[in-house]
C-alpha cells in the first residue's frame, strides 16, 4: 500500500547553493549620449550575463542563473539590464554571444568563444598587465595566456567533468547546508590545515565528504578539504600551460576566498584585484569585441 504524503508535511527545501544575482548600472554615465552601444551575452552552463558597453566603457550588467533554454536565458539576462536603464534592443548597435549557448542567442550579430572573450574581459578588468587567466566556470575550467591587448596566445580547457568548477561547489554547499557565499570564509575557520579530499569528482567528493563528517570532521574542515582539492586540481591545469605574472581569476569561484587563497599559496603568486564582478568577464569581453567590430563597421 502506498503511503500518502501531504505537501504541507514535507520539509522546506532550502537552496544553499543559490548565489547572488546582480543587476548594476553605472549611474554616472548617460547611454543616450553614446555613439556606440554594444552588448555581450554570455550564456554559460550555470549562469548567464548580459553586459552593456557604451563607447568602449562598461555601463551595466545583469548576472543571473541560466534557465532551461539558452535563447530565453539570453533574453532574460538582457531584458533585466535594459529595464534597469530604460534601453531597448533597437538602441544597441552590436550584440555578441559567447559561452556554451552562444549560438543560441537569437539577436546576436556574431558568436565568439568564451576563451577569447574571457581574455578580452580580463584585460579590461585587470589592465594590460594581465597575462595568465584562470576561468573557473559553472561546469568547466579554462587556463588562458594572453598578450597586452587581451589576445589569446595559449589556452587549455577542461570540460570533461565538473570537478574544480562552480557546480561542484554548489553541490558541497547543499550537502553541508551552508550558503555558498559562506563556504570560503568558513574554510579558514579551522584549527589546523587539512588534507585535500582525494577525489575532486563531484560524485565521489560528495561521498568522501559524508565519510569525513561521520569520522568526526567539522563542516568547516570538510569544506577546507574540498577547497584545497579544488585548488590543487586547477593548479595542475594551470601548470600545463605555465603561469606568468599578471595572474587573474574570472568566473564565480573567483568570489570564493577559500579556493582563491589556496590557489595563490600553491602558485606562489597573488591574483590581481578588480572592483568589477569577476563573473561578467566573458560577457564584458564579448561586448568589447562588439565595440571593436561596430567601430570598424562605422569607419568603413
Amino acid at each position, binding site marked *: 500500500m502506498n503511503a500518502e504524503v501531504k505537501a504541507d508535511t514535507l520539509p522546506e527545501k532550502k537552496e544553499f547553493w543559490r548565489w547572488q544575482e546582480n543587476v548594476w548600472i553605472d549611474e554616472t554615465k548617460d547611454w543616450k549620449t553614446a555613439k556606440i552601444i554594444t552588448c555581450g551575452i554570455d550564456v554559460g552552463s550555470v549562469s548567464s550575463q548580459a553586459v552593456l558597453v557604451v563607447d568602449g566603457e562598461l555601463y551595466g550588467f545583469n548576472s543571473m542563473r541560466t534557465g532551461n533554454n539558452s535563447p530565453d536565458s539570453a533574453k532574460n539576462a538582457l531584458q533585466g539590464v535594459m529595464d534597469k536603464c530604460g534601453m531597448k534592443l533597437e538602441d544597441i548597435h552590436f550584440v555578441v554571444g559567447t559561452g556554451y549557448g552562444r549560438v543560441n542567442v537569437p539577436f546576436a550579430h556574431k558568436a565568439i568563444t568564451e576563451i577569447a572573450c574571457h581574455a578580452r574581459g580580463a584585460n579590461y578588468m585587470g589592465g594590460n598587465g594581465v597575462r595568465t587567466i584562470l576561468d573557473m566556470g559553472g561546469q568547466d575550467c579554462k587556463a588562458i595566456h594572453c598578450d597586452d591587448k587581451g589576445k589569446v596566445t595559449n589556452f587549455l580547457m577542461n570540460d570533461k567533468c565538473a570537478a574544480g568548477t562552480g557546480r561542484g561547489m554548489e553541490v558541497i554547499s547543499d550537502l553541508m547546508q551552508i550558503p555558498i557565499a559562506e563556504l570560503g570564509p568558513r574554510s579558514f575557520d579551522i584549527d589546523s590545515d587539512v588534507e585535500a579530499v582525494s577525489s575532486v569528482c563531484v560524485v565521489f567528493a560528495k561521498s568522501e565528504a559524508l565519510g569525513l563528517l561521520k569520522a568526526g570532521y567539522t563542516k568547516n574542515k570538510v569544506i577546507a578539504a574540498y577547497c584545497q582539492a579544488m585548488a590543487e586540481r586547477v593548479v595542475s*591545469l594551470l601548470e*600545463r600551460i605555465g603561469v606568468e605574472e599578471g595572474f587573474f581569476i574570472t568566473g564565480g569561484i573567483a568570489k570564493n576566498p577559500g579556493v582563491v587563497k589556496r590557489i595563490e599559496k600553491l602558485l606562489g603568486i597573488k591574483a590581481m584585484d578588480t572592483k568589477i564582478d569577476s563573473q561578467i568577464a566573458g560577457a564584458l569581453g564579448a561586448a568589447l569585441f562588439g565595440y571593436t567590430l561596430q567601430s570598424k563597421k562605422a569607419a568603413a
Partner: protein
Amino acid sequence: MIANYGYKDGSGEYYISIDTDKCISCSAGHACLTACPKSMFETITDDYDDEVTWVKKPNCRTLAYDCADCKPSAGYTSLPCMTACTPGAIKHSW
C-alpha cells in the same frame, strides 16, 4: 596561439596542442585533415578571423580512446597527424 584540446582525468593527461600560427599559412595544405584515420581535425575560422585547424568538439573528450589506434602500442612508429603536419604544428602530450 597554442590551442590545447583534450582533458585530464584519473588515468592521465591527454592533450593535442596545435600551434595555430603555423596553421594559418599551412605549407602542407592542411594534410592533417585526411591523415587522421578518425577524421578528428577540421578547419575553422577562429575568433581572430584566421583559418586554422582544430580538434572536433566530441573528440576532445575521448582523445585517449580515439588516438589509441595510432599509438606505438598499435604498431605505429609515428603518429599520422604529426607526420602529415610538416610545419610541426601538432603535438600530443602522451
